[in-house]
Structure formats: C-alpha cells, structure tokens
C-alpha cells in the first residue's frame, strides 16, 4: 500500500518535472492564437466589426469578447476559416456589421477634391497621397477598400470602384460536375 503510494507519488513528481521543464524549454512566444486569427482576417482595417482594425478584432475573438461573424470583407469564407481554426460552428455573417461586397477600391474625383486632407487622416493604410490644398489621389494597389475615407470627405468626391477582371486576375472556374445530367 505504502509502496504503491510512493510509486504513484514519485511518478507524479517526475512527470510534473518533465512538464514543467517542457513548458520552459518550449515556451511559445506571444499569443499565437491572435496571430493565427489575424492571419485569416483580410486586413481591410475597416472597423466594421466594431474594433479599430483587424488585430484588435483578432484579440477580441481570442479573448472570447467578439463573435467570429463580424467581418464583412472576410465574408463567408473567412468565417468558415475562423470556425475551422477555433473549432466552432459556422454561422452566417452578422447583419448589423454589414454585407459582403465585391472587392473595390476608393477613387477620388480630382475635379471635386479640395485638398482638405481629411481622407488622408482617415486612411488606415496610408494609401492616399496629397497635401493641404493640393489635390489628393488614392494609390489603388495599396487601397484595401475599407471605405473609411468616404464619410470624412466634405465634398463627397470619393467613390468606391469595383476592380475589373483582367487577364491576370481571371480565374479558371471550378469544373462543374453535373452527374445527374447523364441520367
């Protein structure tokens, strides 16, 4: 009886020591979950989720404060990936946070721009160039399509333009399998 207790106790101590050593030796830096969630988010930085950027939203998801269906630019696919990563059930995009739209970029009507710099300050990725009282323009390849520049513009000269499909961005379609056709 005593020897059994001793054996169990010493095994427990030994395993505990191993675990403790492993925890120190293989310590994971930072919070990998937040990084993993952030990697799935589209980095639009639009704030539609209710958080000031993708990283804070990722942090909120990781802390269990936010749900996974609050990111309209990520769309259904993004939610699926998050559900996969977190082992949760898929749920449709929450309507209060917006709807999924085709990717588009901001365009400044240069005739109407008055050079107020408000959109430059609003842009989360510094994709708008210009100076006070000078005409502004959007660097299209850098624009994430977050639409944050539209509201501040006092003359409503910013519009969202859908990106046209080009030979480079064209994709081969999923081969349609219609087995029933053959019946």
């Amino acid at each position, binding site marked *: 009886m005593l020897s059994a207790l001793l054996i169990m106790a010493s095994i427990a101590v030994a395993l505990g020591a191993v675990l403790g050593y492993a925890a120190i030796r293989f310590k994971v830096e930072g919070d990998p979950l937040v990084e993993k969630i952030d990697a799935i988010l589209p980095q639009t930085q639009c704030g539609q989720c209710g958080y000031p950027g993708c990283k804070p939203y990722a942090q909120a998801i990781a802390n269990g404060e936010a749900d996974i269906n609050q990111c309209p630019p990520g769309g259904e696919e993004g939610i699926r990936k998050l559900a996969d990563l977190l082992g949760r059930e898929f749920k449709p995009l929450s309507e209060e946070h917006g709807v999924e739209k085709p990717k588009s970029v901001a365009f400044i009507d240069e005739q109407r721009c008055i050079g107020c710099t408000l959109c430059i300050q609003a842009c989360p990725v510094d994709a708008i160039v210009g100076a006070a009282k000078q005409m502004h323009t959007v660097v299209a390849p850098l624009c994430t399509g977050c639409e944050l520049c539209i509201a501040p513009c006092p003359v409503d000269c910013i519009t969202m333009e859908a990106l046209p499909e080009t030979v480079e961005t064209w994709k081969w379609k999923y081969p349609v399998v219609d087995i*029933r056709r*053959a*019946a």
Partner: protein
Amino acid sequence: MIHSPYLRKPVSVRQVMFTVLVALLPGIAAYVWQIGAGILVNLAIATVVALAAEAFVLRLRRRPVGLALGDLSAVVTAWLVALCFPLIVPWWVTALGVLTAIVAVKHLYGGLGQNPFNPAMAAYCAMIVAYPALMSQWPSAGQLDFSTQLALILGGSRDVDAITGATALDALRTGLRGGGTDVATLLGQEAFGALGGRGFEWVALGYLIGGLYLLARGVITWHMPVAFTAALAGIAALFWAVHPEQFASPLFHLASGGAMLAAFFIVTDPVSGATTPRGKLIFAAGAGILAWLIRNFGAYPEGVAFAVLLMNLCVPLIDMKTQPKVFGHRGDRS
C-alpha cells in the same frame, strides 16, 4: 468538353470492367469443368442481386442509374463474391454477401471509387463470421453432381459433413493443431489432389491465365501479383524448408484457397489498394505475408480475405509514405 485536351483515348470504365470479366472466364471454365456447373447458378444469382442492389441504392442516392449500372463494376464485384464463396453455399448466403458488398461496403462509403475496403473480401469475411459452417463446406472435384449442387444451392437438405470433406487448408490446420501427424500424411489423402484441393489447382491455373491477360491488356501492373505471390511463397518456403512436417510447401499455398484469385483479381482492385508503384509492392506483399500467417496461426483456415482487409486499412498510410519522386525533384528530401 469545354477546355483542352480535346482529344480522348477511346477508353472507359466499362471497358476496364469488361476486360476483368473476360479475364475471369478461364477460371470459371476450369471451375465448371473440375468442380461443377453449380458455380454458374451462383454467378447468376450474384449478378442479379448485385444489379438490383446497385440500381436500388443509386435510386436512393439520386444518381443516374443507367450510367452507373453500365459501368459493370457491380457485375465484377458480384462475380468475385460468387467465386470466393463455396460452391454449395445456399443462394441466400450469396445474395446476402453481394448485398453486403454493394450496399454496405461500396455505397455506404460513397459508391464507386470511394470504398476503402475490397467489397468481395469484406463480404467473404462478413459471411464467414456469420455462417462459419456454411462458408466452410467445399466440395472437391467430381464429388457432387449438378443436381445435388443445385439442390444444395437452392436450399435442400444440409447434411453437409456427410457430403463434403473439409478443404485441404482446413484439414491441414485442424490436423496439425491436433498433433500427432504431419503435412505429408494429411495432404496425402486422395481428396486433396496433387497440390491444393483436388480440381482447384486447375481453377487456380485458370485465374493465372486470366491474370496474365489483364497484365497484357495493361489493366493491372506487375507489382501486385508479383509481390503477393512472392511474399506468400517466400514466407511459406522459409518455414517449409526448416519444418517440412509442420508447414505446407509454397506451391501448396499458391495453388490452394483463393491465392491466385487474390493475386490477380483481389489485391489488384485499384479502388481499395495502394496506388504508387512502391506502395503496390508493400500492399501486396503485406497481404501475402498476412495471408500465410492467418492460414497457419489464425482462427480461420483461409486468410487471404482478412489479410486484404487488414492491408486495405493501411493504404492511406502506404500511399502517403511512398509517393514517387516527381520530375525535377529527385534530389529532394522526401
């Protein structure tokens, strides 16, 4: 076809399956000649049940019935089931076996191309577990006339031990377990013929001829038959050389039971077998060794079916670990 290639070789699944059926004919002919024409009744029963089951399940799954029935895969499964079951098994056992193969093993896993287990072998295993007595009565050559066979198949009296003896494999196993005798005495009995069960060596030869035809037509590759027979014969030879009184000869192992059917028609099933060249060798050799082990040390006299199912389980791992080197990547670490 909307995109290239716009050319297609005139081949089809139906053709592949038809070639397999043709390749089975020499074996069937030898069976009829040596053992009995009752096998034709079994084949007919199996075919009808298989087609009906396939059509029914496809209906349930809302798949095109005509196209899938036309691919003849169900007929191949049915024939293999009928050929690996004993000749005089009652018709409903054959039917149940075919139903197991088509409904449970094939369609429950997603239909053609998706089943992880060989349907015929799974059916054999299910039936031998469920009806061990019925599944172990093999008549040998010339023992029963056609009307007796027919009566037995269609549900006549089943005073079986009086009609048939045990198979050579069965006799060997029980005889050696009992002790006090050796292989030569056991197999010296007149009922067992020169190699395996009397008459069955001719059937095995028929399968071999059909198998060579499949090889010639490119339906199967050499890997599986060679690895299977070499492994089975190799391990048998090893033990036979040391203890000839305890272990049967490699030739006996090759010619008896379902070894030849398995070598060319069962392990070569592309759906449930390994697919890479190295994987095929491992898969078939594993099946051969397991078959010998089960024959000698297992609870059932014939081990091929269980061996194949066990190797089916290993296929995903085998395939993953034996991926061939890709063009330009021969130097890469695997």
